[in-house]
């Protein structure tokens, strides 16, 4: 489809941060407005970033972080780091099945965690041949971005359990 790539901005300025909140200055607004930065595809591709106002209306969407430069880019990076808390599993220590519930003991990039997964059909999302996201009953999510990159024991435990 012609012009499809034009839907995202490739350059953005006017980002500032005050009192813990992110602001965006727009030519059509007198004052900078409070915005939150979010990925459009947080699971499959962390590239496009949308800026929503407090009413959750889209203000602007950029193609990726490269649309921002210098300090403004750092502010957005910080805001995204604060928002996205997907734990990346780096090692699977054990998977124990009790009464239909799988108990995973894992090491993640944010520390060790013990979580449960029920009904894998519903709570395990395969995003590719080797990428998957597990969701526990409380709604916490844990990603294995590349199953092939895990150690053999971890891989075996994952394959055996799913």
């Amino acid at each position, binding site marked *: 489809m012609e012009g499809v790539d034009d839907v995202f901005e490739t350059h953005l300025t006017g980002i500032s941060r005050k009192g813990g909140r992110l602001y965006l200055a727009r030519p059509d607004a007198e004052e900078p407005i409070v915005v939150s930065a979010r990925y459009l595809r*947080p699971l499959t591709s962390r590239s496009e970033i949308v800026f929503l106002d407090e009413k959750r209306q889209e203000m602007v969407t950029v193609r990726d972080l490269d649309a921002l430069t210098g300090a403004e880019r750092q502010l957005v990076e910080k805001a995204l780091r*604060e928002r996205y808390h997907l734990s990346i599993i780096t090692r699977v220590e054990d998977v124990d099945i009790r009464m239909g519930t799988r*108990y995973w003991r894992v090491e993640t990039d944010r520390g060790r965690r*013990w979580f*449960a997964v029920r009904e894998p059909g519903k709570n395990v999302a395969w995003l590719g041949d080797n990428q998957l996201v597990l969701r526990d*009953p409380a709604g*916490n999510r844990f990603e294995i971005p590349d199953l092939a990159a895990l150690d053999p024991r971890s891989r075996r435990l994952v394959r055996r359990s*799913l």
Partner: protein
Amino acid sequence: MKLADPVPPSLAQWLPSDFEPTVAVTADLDGEGCFGVSWVAADGRRVLALGGGGDRSELSLEDVTAVRIDELFGASRLVAVSDGSESVLAYYSRNLVGEFALFARALDQLREGRPVELPDEIERAVCGTCGAPLPERGATCPRCLSRGSIVRRLLGILEPYRMRVAALVGWATLAVGAAMVPPMTYKLIADRVLEGGQHDELLLWVGLMMAAFLVGAGSQFMTAWSNAWLGARVVADMRAQLHARAQRLRLTYHNRHESGELVGRVMNDTGELQHFLIDGVPYFLVNLLSFATIAVILLVLDWRLALLVFLPVPVLVLGGGGFWTLLRPLFHKHGNRVGRLHTVLGESIHGVRAVKSLVQERRREGEFGQANEQLFGVHVTVERTFQGFFGTMSFMMALGTVLVWYAGGRAIIEGVTGVGLGTLLAFVGYMALFYGPLQWFSAVLNWATNALTAAERIFAVIDQPEEGSPVVAQAAPTRVEGAIAFEDVRFSYERGREVIKGIDFSIAPGEMIGLVGKSGAGKSTIINLVARFYDPDSGAVRIDGRDLREMELEAWRRQVGMVMQQPFLFNASILENIRYGVPDASFGRVVAASRAARAHDFIAAKEDGYDTTVGDGGSSLSGGERQRVAIARAILNDPPVLILDEATSAVDSETEKQIQEAIANLVQGRTTIAIAHRLATLRNADRLLVIDEGKIVEQGTHEELLAIEGGQFANLVKLQTDINRLRAEQTAWKE
């Protein structure tokens, strides 16, 4: 509830000595969002947040202007706003949303100088005993659950049928006893008749053998006969209990669980249990008894040969255990892949129109093919594992037989005392009975694990609290006046996400109120609270001045008529559907109600009239027809309180007119709360409440609200008028 987590030991050194918290909660993430510990607490004057490494922030409650919870991706944070700046008090995982929602509420109460009042119960995501994550918030921890208690409960179910159980045990014991006799007769025939020359005893021992076989066959048949009844009876009882409980579960339970899951529990789990109770338990008991008896007999016959028979036992037991350890994840995998195949197949069939219109048949074939092949792969592995195991086990047993024949044969040849041909034949006979059940013990134990899991899942539903457990159970009056009042009502479907944020209003008996607002504003939640599908987190809903929670639930529901956007009709005749709530209503009353509902004409015109079967979910009727049948049902029920939820959406103008007329007949003399997508349909309402983000933002008559310059209602009406004008123009242009 007291939300007062003690300060974690690792942070205690940073706690000011003069700080005595009123509320406190421990978070499971640190300031960087890593798994760790932080602690946030408040006394009457300040709020204190402690993090790892001595991070400490302290704010005076006087300076805090608002407390906010930010839902992040995969976590949440508690933010205090003061003097235009924001301070993050804590990051926490989804495990703690309930605790932090309460903490935020407590902070608001402290800021306003009010005493801290929190609900009595909180459903935790982590087991308070062992710290394991729970399969569901507030659920019983499977890791802490004692298998013994489940077994005791299952045995408790058998209590009413104890005589039948006693008979079953009697028949099973007799069957074991009978099976012990034939090998002994082999010995007697060999020793006494063939070697001892007592030829006249042959008929005696063969007769005994025959009698034992007959008694064995008869008692086995009776065991199976008794057990078939008993197993099916127990499961039917559990199914009935489960269904009855499912009907009375709180809607929050149904919101959290898919209907298929409950159906699965009613059918599959009870089926699993039946399978185990009928085929597993008696087999296991009989074989256990038989195993022990034969072991004793063999030792008595000849302890040296007996030891040879016992030689493969550890291998068979350990091998069996290992085999099931290997097979269990394979079974789970198999189950998952069957589920996946069902999903793909279901989507292909239900979504066939979408697939065809998007020309994606090949893609669906590919997806089904992939799921099918995956199932094929695991199926082959399961079967091969099974066959490999049984082959190995058969060989181990054959090895025992070979050893006994060799050692027994040598003993006879060498004339070892006590070992004769009879003893050897008896050994061979008993060995088949001895080894046979051995390999199944571990299988049955695994079977038991599955059945206990199924029982636990069934009990988990049966043990769920019923809806509407009243504060003080009092019957509702025969007919309420219909005055409804909301007093500072707050409600959340999920702790931490309030959808009704302090609503106050009152409706006089016979008044018609319209609820207006955007999708997700909280309109449907308000009517859910009136129907008492849920109870408020705080505040009260009052009917004629009485707290709804003090009324008997069924008595109250009988006084509320509901006509929903997509009314549910049962797969029965129109007549049965109309009088579903009043089964003994006369046919005359049904027709009168149908006439008032503008349904009589279309029903009468149908070939089968009122006997027309409506199909699954009312599928043989049009949307407008279904709606009018539902209105007729509500009119027949004659409730003093009426709830209309988008009753005229998704129908054409002519049908809408008929439904409007039907509703006009219906609302007369009843307190009515109506939600309508088309605002013009609420013109007849006495008053309108405009709801936004869980609060009432405007209220008044249609005209009063229209007169508010820039008001939400005025904006919504303008928007709809513009859309209608646009549609009219488009229609005119096409024509």
